[in-house]
């Protein structure tokens, strides 16, 4: 109990004083995760929708594979991205290891299957409602995907937020590919791991509460933004 109280106090102190280091690592956390979310959504949402409406030979296998990939172990993704980006690896010339770009790449790989899978589930149900209508209107495939995505936008938001939740709290992969370098690639989760390692439980917990607060704030912000723009049209 005592450690938790101390952690809460530490979180309050960090936030009240707007600790410059905390602000820097929180902003990097947000930058990495939101960039990863944008890229992953651009891939996953059309992919998931296409899987819902397109019939092809290995469709069941593809869907099963996608669902399985939701459970990709981040630490393995981190290791693979690390080996690829290492100077002695195939993409070493890019010099991307231990940069935020590498962290974004790892997170895109981790959350794309999750977003695509949730998208597919939602779009499949929607497609069974819209199927006859869209076929009878003689729509093109692109039009069908666009219609489903637009009318299912609320579920898609949920899918994206699930991806955000997985990415913002992730530590295994970004620790490996980012290296947790102070002032360069340190984010909230890796800082928490570091402080735990030093036995500074109060500070580690404090950072943890800040991270939870941040995740909640982003969720609220996205919901608020969506509502004010599209009142009554959901």
């Amino acid at each position, binding site marked *: 109990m005592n450690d938790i109280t101390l952690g809460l106090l530490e979180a309050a102190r960090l936030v009240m004083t707007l600790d410059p280091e905390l602000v820097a690592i929180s902003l990097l956390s*947000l*930058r*990495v995760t*939101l*960039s990863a979310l*944008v890229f992953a*959504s651009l891939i996953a*949402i059309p992919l998931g929708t296409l899987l819902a409406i397109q019939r092809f030979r290995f469709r069941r296998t593809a869907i099963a594979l996608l669902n399985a990939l939701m459970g990709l172990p981040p630490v393995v993704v981190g290791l693979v991205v690390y080996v690829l980006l*290492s*100077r*002695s*690896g195939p993409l*070493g010339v890019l*010099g*991307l*290891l*231990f*940069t*935020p*770009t590498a962290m*974004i790449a790892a997170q895109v790989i981790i959350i794309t299957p999750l977003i695509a899978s949730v998208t597919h589930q939602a779009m499949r149900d929607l497609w069974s409602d819209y199927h006859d209508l869209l076929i009878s209107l003689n729509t093109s495939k692109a039009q069908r995907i666009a219609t489903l*995505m637009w009318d299912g*936008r609320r579920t*898609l*938001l949920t899918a*994206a937020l699930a991806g955000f939740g997985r990415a913002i709290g992730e530590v295994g992969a970004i620790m490996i590919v980012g*290296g*947790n*370098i*102070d*002032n*360069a690639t340190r984010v909230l989760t890796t800082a928490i791991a*570091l402080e*735990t*390692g*030093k*036995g*500074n*439980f109060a500070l580690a917990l404090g950072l943890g509460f800040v991270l939870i607060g941040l995740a909640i704030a982003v969720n609220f912000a996205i919901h608020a*933004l969506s509502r004010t*723009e*599209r009142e009554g049209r959901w």
Partner: protein
Amino acid sequence: MTPRPLLAGTFLLAALPVQAQEMRMAVTTSFENSGLADVLLPAIAEDTGIEVQLLVVGTGQAIRLGEAGDVDAILVHAQAAEEEFVSAGFGTARQPIMYNDFVIVGPSEDPAGLADLSSAVAAVTAVEMTEAPFVSRGDDSGTHKAELALWSEALLDPETFGPWYNAVGAGMGSALNTAAGLNAYILADRASWLNFGNKGDLAVLFEGDPALYNQYTYIPVNPERHPNVQADLAMELQDWLTSPAAQELIDNYTIAGEALFVFNADDPEAASPTPPAPAPIE
């Protein structure tokens, strides 16, 4: 979902940081946990304009990073592995910088009676005889290698130990956390121990044996092997680390009134295969 140019625009892909005066150095957790880095790095930035980015890993991984050319220099403490690294052509040359010492930490009631013993080998033998819980780093780090050297000198093989021997495969801090939780013995470097915030019921029970001497060595990564490494910066950093300015900061760094490191870059014997054991710190 409508496209949100605001979000997408604000959080564009990270541009590469300007590489002008930044270099990367892999260091051991024990060095980083000592807090000395927080003293040295600002001074390095001020005197040389080099911003040193630290990758804090175990000695084993630090050497791997150097072999792959992912860092420009390494600062580690494991003589045999260092010599192999240099002789295989991955590093240019070993430059001793400083030393500190290891201590054996354990439950303050000291069930194995370490406090009365006179040598580190006798101390680990006593732990084995009483089968008191022991936490090993188990991560191929310099500290882990030092611990294994003690067992082998005591003619004991950790592979044959019972469940009292816990190889956690973690950094110094995490291993200390585990030791505090299990109330177990552990070999730790003095700096990490003094800076550790979760000591629990643990205390230093054995120290001062020259066998616990711990030499830190700086090795620039060989630019002939990896043309991408910033050899100039690595040499500039080496010049600084062996300078009187570094000596002053290293020798005067204390935690709770205890000196932690002794600068010995100027000691020609320090790099030799069998360094004369200096007097223990304190």
